[in-house]
């Protein structure tokens, strides 16, 4: 149970700035995901929170108290690593018991031979045994307690790593891409399990991933980091629908959002590829990007915009049509809900989108406020012009 505040956090490695002033408040009991492309500093942020890495400037506060100079173990946070980081020479039981032994036994009681003779040791060991067995039962790894990590499958190691984290009842959990070494099916399964674990424990979860599907499905809030900056934090749906920056729009959602080159005209209307959109903006005249998600692109026979089908991805339940058209750098991707309706490769298709589907960004990538002026007579919803 902890509220974690991160204030103006900066971190540089040998002069290279990896975190460039991160501000974030993580509420008590929240499940927040940190997402972002590889190398954007997610792990570094997590390690600073954990106390494994000192920050260059800024502050981490846990439950209102500054965590500066507090040792990792004294912060009472638990971390699950991508590589699981189990002690290879210890059995599963001992792996899970390590944090408890370190916390509850004195140095003398932990000593190899003398420890056994200490009076309090046996009672403490009995309590530890009960705790480990309870956690093992909860994670369904009781039959594995005697094995070494080398004799476990990836999914089982993952559970042991989670077990080692939950056994000490930490104030918050830090996960660093815990599922990225698992195969796709197991990943979906473990995703559900971790979400379930959060509902059970009601503790703060900070979950780092570069898989945005994971973040969208599990967390109450996602925080998108790009290039060492935290660009946007909010509910998954809000970030998806209302990205405040073109990098967020492009990172969240697969396939990637379509970007068309556009212009803001002097009268405040937006235009793209020679068509004037039925949209207005208070932003000053100049270049801009017009972005539309694949599921909002509609194929139509009498094309408003048109292009040739260059590639098809049929996923069975849905299909993605890649349309190459003049004026856009990358092919435009459109989702077709009924795969039997997809056009053939090489066919010329028309497509369009509703003004509501448009997210516009200025040349710096910042979101531009847009509005749809009410029209007297509204023709068709999807009309572009």
């Amino acid at each position, binding site marked *: 149970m902890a509220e974690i505040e991160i204030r103006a956090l900066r971190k540089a490695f040998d002069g290279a700035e990896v975190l460039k002033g991160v501000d974030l408040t993580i509420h008590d009991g929240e499940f927040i995901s940190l997402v972002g492309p590889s190398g954007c500093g997610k792990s570094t942020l997590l390690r600073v929170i954990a106390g494994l890495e000192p920050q260059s400037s800024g502050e981490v506060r846990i439950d209102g108290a500054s965590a500066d100079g507090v040792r990792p173990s004294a912060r009472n946070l638990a971390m699950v*690593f991508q590589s699981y980081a189990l002690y290879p020479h210890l059995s599963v039981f001992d792996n899970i018991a390590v944090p408890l032994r370190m916390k509850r036994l004195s140095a003398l009681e932990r000593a190899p031979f003398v420890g056994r003779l200490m009076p309090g040791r046996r009672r403490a060991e009995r309590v530890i045994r009960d705790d480990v067995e309870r956690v093992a039962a909860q994670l369904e790894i009781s039959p594995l307690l005697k094995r070494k990590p080398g004799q476990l499958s990836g999914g089982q190691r993952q559970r042991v790593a989670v077990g080692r984290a939950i056994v000490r009842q930490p104030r918050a959990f830090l996960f660093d891409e815990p599922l990225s070494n698992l195969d796709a099916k197991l990943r979906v399964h473990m995703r559900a399990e971790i979400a379930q674990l959060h509902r059970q424990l009601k503790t703060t979860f900070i979950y780092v991933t570069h898989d945005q599907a994971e973040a969208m499905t599990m967390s109450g809030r996602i925080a998108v980091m790009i290039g060492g900056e935290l660009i946007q934090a909010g509910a998954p749906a809000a970030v998806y629908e209302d990205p405040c920056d073109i990098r967020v729009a492009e990172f969240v959602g697969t396939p990637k959002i379509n970007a068309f080159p556009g212009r803001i005209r002097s009268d405040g209307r937006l235009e793209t590829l020679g068509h004037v959109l039925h949209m207005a903006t208070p932003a000053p005249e100049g270049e801009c990007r017009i972005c539309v998600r694949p599921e909002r692109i509609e194929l139509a026979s009498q094309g408003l915009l048109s292009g040739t089908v260059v590639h098809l991805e049929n996923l069975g339940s849905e299909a993605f049509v890649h349309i190459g058209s003049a004026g856009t750098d990358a092919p435009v991707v459109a989702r077709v809900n009924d795969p039997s309706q997809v056009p053939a490769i090489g066919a010329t298709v028309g497509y369009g989108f509703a003004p509501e589907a448009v997210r516009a960004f200025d040349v710096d990538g910042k979101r531009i406020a847009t509005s749809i002026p009410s029209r007297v007579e509204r023709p068709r919803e999807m009309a572009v012009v």
Partner: protein
Amino acid sequence: MTPRARMLLCSAIRHIVLHAGALVMLTPFIWMVSTASKPQTEIFSSDLHLIPYHFALWDNLRIAFAKADLWRYLLNGLIVTTSIFGLQVLVALPAAYALSKLRFLGRDVLFALVVFCILIPPQATAIPVFLLLHKLGVLDSYAALVLPFTISVFGIFLMRQFFKTVPDDLIDAARMDGISEFGIVWRVMLPTAIPAVTAFGIFSVVAHWNDYFWPLIVLNSEHLQTPPLAVAHFRNNEAGANYGPLMAAAMVIIAPLVIAFLFAQRRFIEGITLTGIK
């Protein structure tokens, strides 16, 4: 030639070369065993024969044990090599951990110095070390045999290279669990590094068990002498070199090494397969 025949030929050549190499390495040992099994008269006979006509190994061993207190020398060897190895591990592991996993100013310079020290032959520093021990007043004692070797730069280097391969996450996990930095060295790094420690142990024990130079310099007392000095006893006898018992004594003093190596070799392979890092 068919490919199959060619493969057989290649394999045959390979084996012949390897066998020749093995023979060159083994010949002195075979000769030692042979000589140790011959009576005095056969050793000096002009015809070369490997198999003795009269098997005299037991007699030679008896003479060897009667002439010198071999058990005492073996015990000295054991005390010296185990103390050296124990102290070397005690120094090398924390040093290697710091050099491989901790970030501090001047780490790379220190490591470069360690590598540089490997290049210095021990004979080059023998006289200063001897004078130092003299000033400390510990010449002619176990301490004189052990102390100069407690810091093994080779051991630090070897362990550091091995520790480099231990994932950082494992150390971070240990820190999260509340294990102190020294605790990490002994409870996390040492168990994962057993194969490397074993390999280092073989090098260290063999080198110091067989060391002739240093014990010869610092020792006077007979009761402290190490096994290689013991063999020398048989050579300096007034009656001239007595090769049968000498070779028998040599056999006795290498036997522990051979046995220890066979034992460690199994542990070595076991160690590699057991530590399932990853």
